[in-house]
């Protein structure tokens, strides 16, 4: 089975802190994604990456950056955390093959910014 692992289940940070959310997948998937989920808004794509060192902005990239130095690891960075970034963050991965891009999710990180 595909495993997507997020480093923390719950995280509490202070406004202005730099925050790193880590995600690792074990299935050699090319694509990796970061979403945030907020009540009433569903899942919104922040950034995605289809290869090492490649990244593409999603629908809501403002206030975030990403890093993909190795194929299995995709990091989301909040340069200066703000209270409106309190949310559930979900990492996902999939194969590059468009005919079979089944998406697999990690268990999520609930981030609270105080």
């Amino acid at each position: 089975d595909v495993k997507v692992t997020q480093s923390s289940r719950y995280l509490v940070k202070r406004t202005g802190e730099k925050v790193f959310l880590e995600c690792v997948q074990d299935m050699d998937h090319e694509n990796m994604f970061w979403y945030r989920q907020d009540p009433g808004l569903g899942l919104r794509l922040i950034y995605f990456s289809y290869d090492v060192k490649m990244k593409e902005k999603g629908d809501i990239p403002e206030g975030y950056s990403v890093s993909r130095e190795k194929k299995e690891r995709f990091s989301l960075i909040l340069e200066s955390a703000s209270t409106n970034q309190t949310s559930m963050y979900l990492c996902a991965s999939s194969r590059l093959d468009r005919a079979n891009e089944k998406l697999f999710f990690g268990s999520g990180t609930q981030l609270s910014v105080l």
Partner: protein
Amino acid sequence: GIQVEQSPPDLILQEGANSTLRCNFSDSVNNLQWFHQNPWGQLINLFYIPSGTKQNGRLSATTVATERYSLLYISSSQTTDSGVYFCAALATGTASKLTFGTGTRLQVTL
């Protein structure tokens, strides 16, 4: 971009009942997936179904691509089916990022 709409937004069922969840999308798609998010937040991929019909136990899904909708059927519902069901679609000819609907919240009661 593609619009994905799900209905109903909320559903309450008694254990043992059947239900149909609907997903409408605004463009032709080459990728359509259904997910279940359990009460602990974990999203599980149920079906990859850009067209046709698939079945997995008590769950089945049908996508009619030409009419731009997909249906998820849950038969003999159980309390463990509770949670939020999402569909997500990728429009033909676009980059590899799925657009999610806002979900159907299902509660199955005893």
